[in-house]
């Protein structure tokens, strides 16, 4: 398959993720949509790595996965803390970060 097809799929997934971040209200689903965007970036990185016949893009994708895992742990910790304090699980309601 041509590399361009993979890039098109990557752009489509990134767009869907961005639209989800804008429209959804639950912070859990917003985190899931962020995962979508990161994965789309990973797909583009690996497609370019294949295009150049070079491993650097794949290493970059692995590091992106590590950063995504960190983001998930901290984000889910914030959501659990919100739930503990009986705050509404809704990004529209959360307007201040003061603990």
């Amino acid at each position, binding site marked *: *398959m041509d590399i361009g097809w993979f890039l098109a799929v990557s752009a489509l997934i990134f767009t869907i993720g961005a639209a989800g971040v*804008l429209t959804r209200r639950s912070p859990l689903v917003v985190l*899931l949509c962020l995962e979508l965007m990161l994965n789309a970036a990973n797909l583009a990185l690996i*497609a370019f790595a*294949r295009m150049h016949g070079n491993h650097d893009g794949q290493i970059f*994708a692995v590091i992106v996965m590590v950063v995504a895992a960190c983001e998930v742990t901290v984000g889910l*910790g914030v959501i659990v803390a919100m739930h503990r304090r009986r705050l509404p699980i809704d990004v529209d309601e959360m307007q201040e970060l003061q603990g």
Partner: protein
Amino acid sequence: MGEVLFFVAGIGAVAGAIGVVAVRNPFYSVLALVSHLLCLAALFLLLRAEFVAAAQVVVYAGAVMVLYVFVVAYIGGQDEPLGPRAGQSLKLVSAVFGGLLFIELCVATLGSGLKLIDTGGAVVQPSFGSPAEIGALLLTKFLLPFEIASFLLLIAAVGAVVLARRRGGLTAAEEQAQFSAMDVLRPSYTGTMAEAVGGPHALPKPAASGIDAAPEPAAATAERAEQGPPPTASPPEEER
């Protein structure tokens, strides 16, 4: 064969992404993301990224998604109404924004004029993307990013524990509700969390004539050191 696999996996990935955004229940969103990740791993395999595909399935679809499922189950995956509360206008704006973003990304990647973009990619060795190659690169050329990533994971783990920990111990009702056989069998002051924290239901101090006189002051000082100056310092921490 490659084309068929690409279209099956690509359509699966896009469908999974749409499912994440469009499904009402967060639990089903997580499941849609799992199917999306599996399809994406197939795309990675088509691009000869074997190690990344394996890591994607094991780490992402395995570990991270289990974390998501746990949190959704903890929060209670209540159905939320789709779409913003502001009405249709924000949905329309986001759709327009998404379309523009898609066009821009296509222009930025497909229109970049790279010569190899309309081919299957460069000619590579059969071992391209294998765990051996990636591992050798991670420990030689990319050693510093590798170490920084490990520190980042450590910091994130500590941060998650700090964020999600329970402040101030168990409440009285929760402590009353928990009763196990060990409460009867175990002698006092043999190291439970209730004794260490000294919450609302801390055990009474053992009488000096009870077991030994020696353990009592040691336990008391350890308890005091654990708490710090309890009555004055704890309320500000609670407010913060």
